[in-house]
């Protein structure tokens, strides 16, 4: 994998042999190890200031002859920081090289089948290394681990429920009603990231039955990228917009996240074992209203009940009772890797278990991976990756409802003197002030998602021919991602709200099964040609094919027999089924021209067609072009062209986004009345001629490397326009359809991103690396050919997201005090910053990541609901009403009554210590006496996630979304599952 051109082999050979013949020599020998205690094979050792050099062997051993001492030797190896070591005697030299932060950034993808040196890339491609991903603290989910780690992303956890549920938005809103989440590709396999909601929950909560202005599920299903085990990942590259992702065509408008998993290396078989244990706890509890007997009397007339409960010692803080658990976390990972000359392998097993901060919630994930690489001949390489995952999440019963049955909402209506605990026989009392006893619900209801998933891919890489100055490669890839997702929802009959006497349905059981299979095949030809005057051409062309198939069947039964959970053991059985089949076909061609690494230009085009378009065989073309100029290579700033770096770059590309499945059709729904089956019209009118959205992105940037490239500065500015926006626009409801699908608008995102990486203290016993990012984005709906419409929210009296020409795509509107509908906020942050540090002193390392989101608003309705329940902790404070007349609770209720949304739109800025890790590594040397010297390293440490949270937001966490990962409209809060922070202790051993 080394970046050497073809004549360097001869050159090295010359270096090896020539000095032996000529000079009288001192032989120096030694061994190269990594800071992880592993040997570093094939490192290059050069005598500084000369052309004298050797290559270490597979075990890291080297021997070099020098004329006389002292000398300075320079050790370098791809993936490690280069080290200079002065040598005064010819005693054995032991060198410890540390892994380079930039190591994995040295090549970035440019095409479906090619990569380019980062220094030659015309795009700002963000890279997250394994170390950045999991090195500090094991993330709960892959997408969650990306927060704050590269510029240009807004990553939001929808709730704190275990098992995931994240939204990743790259460079602003890219779609309003289409898919706004990036495409994930793991080792060439298109990976499904659907959220599949469970049946039965909405039947109880009726969340969508009231005022929600959208058909989105509010049950907060997790998204399936949560299944991927972050520990398996070697490297993630993020293509943030069409200028970089155009070659992925009509699925790439929201960006592409390309994930490469770990592979085995030739050499000694390595075994890594790591175990982490820890706990999570709520980030922030809101506390209780300052209750007294007289307050209880004045509000509820229940002063005597308060006093009685106080005397009996049964006053209970139900917020603590529900959210006060410390969830146990255990994370076990074993990996084995190695291989011989022809075959290498990487195998890993992970068991990840995490309890939630609410009893009976939690997530379990077991992942098994085997990656094999085999060289069939010198020119033919076969790679196979396979990953089996079993994951299960118990997510409780939270978020919006219209029946006061969710645990979250019930809690807001519970006073400390309400006694909800079961008696000695396990009988729970009815809630005296609410339609559900949340302790009972928590202790007996089930909301489980279980996934059994196989992701497998293979690629065959063939060198068809090779001459001195050109070669032609053929690459064939195939992959499949198939899973069965089971959702189980169970509300036993004895729950308060299940009782038919109060209108309950006498128990509810729902089983949902989703079979999902996505597969992709592609074939590419890549031709490299270098002319004599160092002009390089890389030509590639290929075909791709993807198929998607989903079949969801949900059976929901009510009127259960005894306490049976089987859906047939019931009086009433309802079934619904959803199927999706999609087939895409595409081709692409790309030409890259490289003039002496000075000027690098790329031109490409992708053509795509899909059964999801109005005309399945119409090809949509997505062009791209880019240019990078390395000014330093021209010698404009001195002759040492590697001491610094000045690169100017620009890129343009287009990419698409499909209409959601079904947007083509106006499909009857089924119903029945007294056993007569019937058909009824849907809420949304289809558009048989709908086209993909088209994103056009133009990106410019400057990359600077200063002080011997110890400081790297990257500045990027972009402008992306999305045309033919696919909108589920409002329609005149008198037509029979409240919404209609249409290509009916355009939007624009403008922003810039700054990244600074510096080795503040590069060498020696103490090193310090730091990284700072700053990024900002502004969007505008530039054209709208339908009426303005609301996406997510509960109307202008409470604050709602509204799509309106000339306004931000994420504006929040609501009624002001004069009853006018005005913009009250915007979910788009003013800017985001992250501050990443890595400090190493000998064997001790400390790293931490701060993430600051400045600005960006939420609609916070949790407090209003607790005001209705008279339980808000800040109810009796006086800091909201500008006139000072009303207490906070009364003020919010009065505002609500008057239809004024202002108090509910809140600044959702935050500063979080996303990650911190403190580790001590015991190296091979110190362990040489233990177990016969078979232990390479032992690493001990502590880590934390979200340990510091600073925000002035009146709820659990400003990072929240009642409507999950919806494309536009993240940041509405209705009694969510509170977020948690995590504390972990680590032990890992390398054999």
């Amino acid at each position: 994998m080394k970046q050497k051109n073809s004549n360097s082999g001869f050159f090295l050979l010359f270096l090896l042999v020539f000095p032996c013949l000529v000079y009288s020599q001192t032989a120096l020998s030694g061994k190269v190890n990594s800071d992880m205690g592993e040997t570093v094979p094939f490192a290059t050792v050069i005598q500084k200031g000369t052309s004298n050099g050797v290559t270490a062997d597979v075990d890291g051993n080297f021997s070099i002859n020098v004329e006389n001492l002292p000398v300075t030797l320079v050790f370098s190896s791809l993936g490690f920081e280069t080290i200079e070591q002065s040598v005064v005697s010819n005693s054995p030299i032991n060198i410890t090289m540390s892994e380079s932060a930039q190591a994995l950034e040295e090549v970035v993808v440019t095409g479906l089948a090619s990569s380019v040196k980062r220094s030659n890339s015309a795009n700002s491609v963000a890279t997250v290394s394994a170390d950045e991903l999991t090195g500090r603290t094991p993330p709960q989910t892959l997408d969650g681990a990306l927060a704050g780690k590269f510029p240009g992303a807004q990553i939001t956890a929808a709730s704190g429920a275990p098992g995931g549920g994240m939204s990743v938005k790259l460079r602003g809103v890219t779609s309003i009603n289409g898919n706004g989440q990036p495409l994930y590709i793991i080792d060439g396999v298109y990976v499904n990231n659907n959220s599949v909601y469970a049946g039965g929950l909405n039947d109880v909560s009726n969340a969508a039955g009231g005022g929600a202005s959208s058909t989105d599920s509010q049950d907060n299903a997790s998204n399936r990228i949560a299944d991927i085990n972050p520990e398996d990942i070697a490297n993630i590259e993020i293509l943030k917009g069409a200028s970089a992702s155009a070659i992925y065509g009509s699925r790439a408008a929201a960006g592409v996240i390309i994930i490469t998993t770990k592979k085995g290396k030739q050499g000694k078989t390595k075994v890594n074992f790591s175990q982490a244990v820890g706990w999570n706890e709520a980030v922030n509890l809101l506390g209780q209203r300052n209750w007294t007997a007289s307050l209880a009397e004045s509000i509820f007339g229940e002063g005597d009940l308060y006093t009685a409960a106080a005397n009996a010692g049964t006053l209970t803080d139900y917020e603590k009772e529900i959210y006060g658990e410390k969830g146990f976390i255990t994370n076990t990972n074993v990996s084995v890797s190695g291989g011989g000359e022809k075959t290498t392998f990487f195998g890993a097993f992970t068991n990840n278990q995490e309890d939630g901060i609410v009893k009976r919630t939690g997530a379990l994930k077991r992942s098994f991976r085997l990656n094999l690489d085999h060289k069939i001949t010198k020119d033919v390489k076969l790679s196979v990756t396979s990953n089996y995952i079993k994951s299960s999440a118990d997510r409780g019963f939270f978020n919006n409802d219209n029946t006061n049955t969710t645990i979250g909402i019930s809690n807001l209506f519970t006073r400390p003197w309400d006694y909800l605990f079961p008696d000695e026989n396990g009988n729970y009392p009815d809630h005296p002030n609410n339609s559900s006893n949340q302790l009972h619900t928590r202790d007996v209801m089930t909301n489980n998602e279980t996934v059994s998933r196989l992701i497998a891919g293979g690629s065959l890489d063939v060198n068809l021919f090779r001459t001195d100055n050109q070669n032609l490669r053929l690459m064939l890839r195939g992959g499949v991602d198939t899973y069965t997702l089971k959702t189980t929802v169970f509300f036993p009959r004895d729950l308060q709200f299940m009782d038919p006497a109060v209108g309950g349905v006498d128990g509810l059981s729902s089983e949902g099964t989703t079979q999902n299979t996505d597969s992709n095949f592609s074939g590419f030809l890549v031709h490299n040609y270098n002319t004599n005057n160092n002009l390089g051409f890389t030509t590639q062309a290929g075909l791709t094919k993807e198929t998607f198939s989903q079949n969801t069947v949900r059976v929901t039964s009510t009127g259960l027999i005894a306490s049976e959970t089987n859906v047939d053991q019931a009086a009433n059985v309802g079934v619904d089924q959803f199927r999706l089949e999609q087939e895409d076909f595409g081709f692409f061609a790309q030409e890259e021209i490289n003039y002496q690494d000075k000027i690098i230009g790329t031109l490409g085009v992708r053509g795509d067609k899909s059964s999801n378009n109005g005309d399945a065989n119409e090809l949509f073309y997505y062009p791209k072009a880019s240019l990078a100029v390395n000014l330093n290579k021209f010698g404009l700033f001195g002759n040492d062209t590697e001491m610094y770096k000045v690169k100017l770059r620009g890129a343009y590309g287009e990419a698409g986004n499909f209409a959601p499945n079904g947007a083509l059709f106006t499909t009857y729904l089924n119903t029945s009345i007294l056993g007569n089956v019937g058909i009824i019209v849907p809420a949304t009118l289809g558009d048989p001629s709908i086209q993909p959205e088209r994103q056009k992105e133009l990106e410019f940037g400057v990359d600077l490397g200063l002080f011997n490239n110890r400081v790297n500065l990257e500045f990027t500015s972009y402008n992306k326009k999305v045309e033919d926006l696919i909108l589920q626009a409002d329609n005149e409801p008198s037509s029979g359809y409240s919404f209609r699908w249409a290509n009916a608008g355009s939007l624009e995102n403008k922003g810039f991103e700054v990244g600074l990486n510096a080795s503040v203290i590069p060498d020696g016993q103490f090193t310090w690396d730091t990284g700072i990012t700053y990024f900002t984005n502004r969007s505008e709906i530039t054209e709208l050919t339908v009426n303005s419409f609301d996406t997510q929210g509960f109307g202008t009296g409470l604050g709602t997201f509204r799509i309106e020409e000339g306004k931000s795509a994420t504006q929040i509107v609501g009624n002001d005090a004069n009853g006018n509908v005005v913009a009250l906020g915007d979910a788009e942050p003013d800017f985001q910053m992250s501050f990443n540090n890595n400090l190493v002193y000998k064997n001790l390392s400390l790293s931490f990541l701060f993430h600051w989101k400045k600005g960006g608003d939420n609609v916070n309705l949790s407090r209003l609901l607790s005001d209705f329940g008279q339980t808000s902790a800040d109810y009796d404070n006086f800091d909201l009403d500008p006139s000072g007349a009303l207490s906070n609770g009364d003020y919010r209720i009065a505002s609500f009554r008057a239809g004024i949304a202002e108090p509910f739109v809140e600044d959702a800025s935050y500063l979080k210590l996303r990650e911190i890790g403190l580790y001590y590594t015991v190296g091979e040397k110190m362990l040489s006496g233990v177990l016969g010297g078979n232990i390479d390293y032992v690493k001990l440490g502590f880590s934390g996630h979200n340990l510091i949270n600073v925000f002035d937001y009146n709820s659990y966490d400003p990072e929240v979304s009642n409507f999950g990962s919806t494309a536009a409209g993240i940041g509405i809060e209705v009694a969510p599952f509170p977020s948690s922070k995590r504390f972990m202790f680590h032990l890992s051993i390398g054999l």
Partner: protein
Amino acid sequence: MKTINKIKVILIAVTLFVGYSCSIEDGKDLNGPETSSISEGLSRPELPQVVSGILSDMRDRLATQVDAISVVGRDYWRIQSSDPRWTGDLLTGVLDDNAFYLTTHYAARYAVVKECNLLLKGLENSTADFSLEEKAAIRGFANTIKAHELLSELNFLYQNGIRTDVADPDNLGPFESYEAALSSIMSLLSSAGVDLALGGDVSPNTLGVSYLEFNKALTARVAAYQGDYTRVLSALGGSFMDFSGDLNAGAYFQFSAGGSDQLNTLSFALNSSVANARIAHPDFVSSAEPNDGRAGKAVLRTEPLSIDDLTGTHDVFIYPTNTSPVGIIRNEELILLYAEANMTANPGQAIFAINIVRNAAGLGDVSSVDVDRLLYERRYSLFAEGHRWIDLRRFDRLNQEIVIDRTGDNVVTQFPIPQNEGL
């Protein structure tokens, strides 16, 4: 075979496969029939499914609709602690043109209108062997239901008017004034009445009366709203009005717990909490004549219920279970319409009719009928069925009769045109 040859074979096979898969079939709708499958030609087996769909969908958002009209008419307060706009907007009169209490049932009623229009269109384009009588019956059914659904929303929007010509989603007719829309509804009912008289009934029918009887009853109601009492009386003649029959006989929405069926969400248990309750307006309880059996539709709670400075002592209790049927138009209303239509022209008949209703409620006879009397009887006979607000409005008694509970509360005369209508 040498390895390299094996590889070549694989390559060729895979290349062929990829090449073969270039052509793509158009996407298919896998999850149900498209609406065009009906509108482009109705078949005989499709007919009962479309009819059932219409009957079923008429119940969609019924509870929100009845609650909204009953709250502004002060029949009862709808208490829902998680959505307090019930005790906010609807009582203060500051109505949102995009709030659920308006938009949900508005869209639901027009969805049924759309289903009727698709049926009518499908009937026009049908190549099935429907006889002239069958076609007339289907047309009569569709237009009667359409009229009912349009009337429901016209009652809310009142002088703002509604659209009645909505067959083409890309070319909707104008908003017609209240009077014009009532006329349009009446002409739908008239032509439907002729069609049903010719064609007979359509299967299935879950109403409990024939579609013709339903058409006539509805015609009487609309004629009363128009003040056309002659027409009220002629329509009642063809309806199911029966002076000696069960006052509760009539057309009903039916419910069941079956899988894709609906439950009656107007049914709440007695003594429900603030989470979800319907509390009879205290004025309904206190204004009842002694021994009026109809006052029993409000049942004394074990504890009063308070929310938002409103305290009530009685639950609305009309539907004992969540499968109890909900009346669309009952004999009791028809007899009261008969009384109303005769009130001026033929007071003796009015007194006769009113006394039937009063006697059934356990009250003695009256000897005269005026508007106050009529409104009292209608209030108690049709309590919580969505009439009082409309009745007070058409007799111009809203400001006089509506009891304002809190400072800041107001009388609602009509609902705004939903924001989505784009006006």
